[in-house]
């Protein structure tokens, strides 16, 4: 899915929810995943000037889960360690998006290079 404007956020979140419900994810995990997705898609819009998101269903052993990938070609993040700190923000907001998202999901991966863009991948296991 391409995300270029604020109006794209809600349809994207609804898609994530559809997948989570279909998989039979618990309400708490659904809410955590949707909230994490919401944080990352907002970062992609606000800092990355829009980009692409991918929703995948994945399996590992007996558990299955949802993997979300957020790709933008924005300015990138200079200091990832700093960006992952609670309360750090260059956008006058709460600075909880990245660190909070990491706490909400099972797996969290961020890659970024200055001038090229940022890619964030998260996984939420159904029972994780």
């Amino acid at each position: 899915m391409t995300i270029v404007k604020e109006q794209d956020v809600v349809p994207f979140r609804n898609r994530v929810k559809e997948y989570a419900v279909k998989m039979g994810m618990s309400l708490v995990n659904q809410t955590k995943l949707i909230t994490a997705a919401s944080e990352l898609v907002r970062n992609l819009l606000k800092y990355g000037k829009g980009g692409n998101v991918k929703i995948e269903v994945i399996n590992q052993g007996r558990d299955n889960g949802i993997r979300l990938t957020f790709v933008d070609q924005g300015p990138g993040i200079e200091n990832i360690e700093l960006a992952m700190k609670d309360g750090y923000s260059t956008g006058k907001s709460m600075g909880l998006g990245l660190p909070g998202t990491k706490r909400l999901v099972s797996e969290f991966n961020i890659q970024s290079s200055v001038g090229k863009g940022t890619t964030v991948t998260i996984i939420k296991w159904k029972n994780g």
Partner: protein
Amino acid sequence: MKNEAVKILQKKKKTILEQWSTNQLASDGLRDDLISNEDQLAQSDELLTVFLNALTDDNIEDPASYDFEKVIDILSGISISRAKQGFSSRETGVYIFSLKDALLTVLQQEIQDPTMLYSQSLKINKLLDNLTVITFETFIKGREEVILRQTDEISEISTPVIRVWDGVLALPIIGTLDSSRTQIVMENLLQEIVETGSSIAILDISGVPAVDSLVAQHLIKTVSATRLMGAECIISGIRPEIAQTVVHLGIDLSQIITKSTLSSALKTAFQMMQLQVVKKQREKVSFSKI
């Protein structure tokens, strides 16, 4: 004699219009509940006249020609107004397709040479296909305008401020609390506080699907603004899964009075106003009267 079609079509305008009307009457795209037959005929007549006047030996092969600008203007107007009147895309499509049929029917009646008929039909086809694409594009644009207008209306009406008690306001928030919504909610709320002289506002978020850090920031801002007005703000309708998520995100709502339901928020409001709701005790009342 390069493009016979141009002359033929211009000469046969009346036949084409009749044929077109017949085609429309025969199709299921006719909506005489939305537009009268006379209006439709006048519309068709205008469009056809302008189209045939614009058609020349050269531009018949050039759908992008500037000569068709006026045709496109009229067609776009028709298409947009149909989108707003509630015509379906099929009905709008049939309108222009049945014009194409009429043009081709006339060509078939008038041109004997099969090669000529084929080449001329092909050109008319291409030309009309282009007009059809434009029709659909503008139709969708018309629909998008309708959607945008509705979006505005929804965000206006979906943030009511309810006076639940003397001095107590309640705001049920339904849907996503984005920046523009927050602005409306805040304005409505502060306005009502002034008008009613209320001292407590309850913001109910049972209808908000997810509370991320942006929504939380908006809520905190609204609470601060309410306090600046000298009133207190209670947030209710925090579902268990939302509470867990907010905590994991790391959002600190400890400075805000939060309640799980609207009724418990109302109870707290009563306490703050030193009001008490008591059950009427019938017997005692009648007793004391005696």
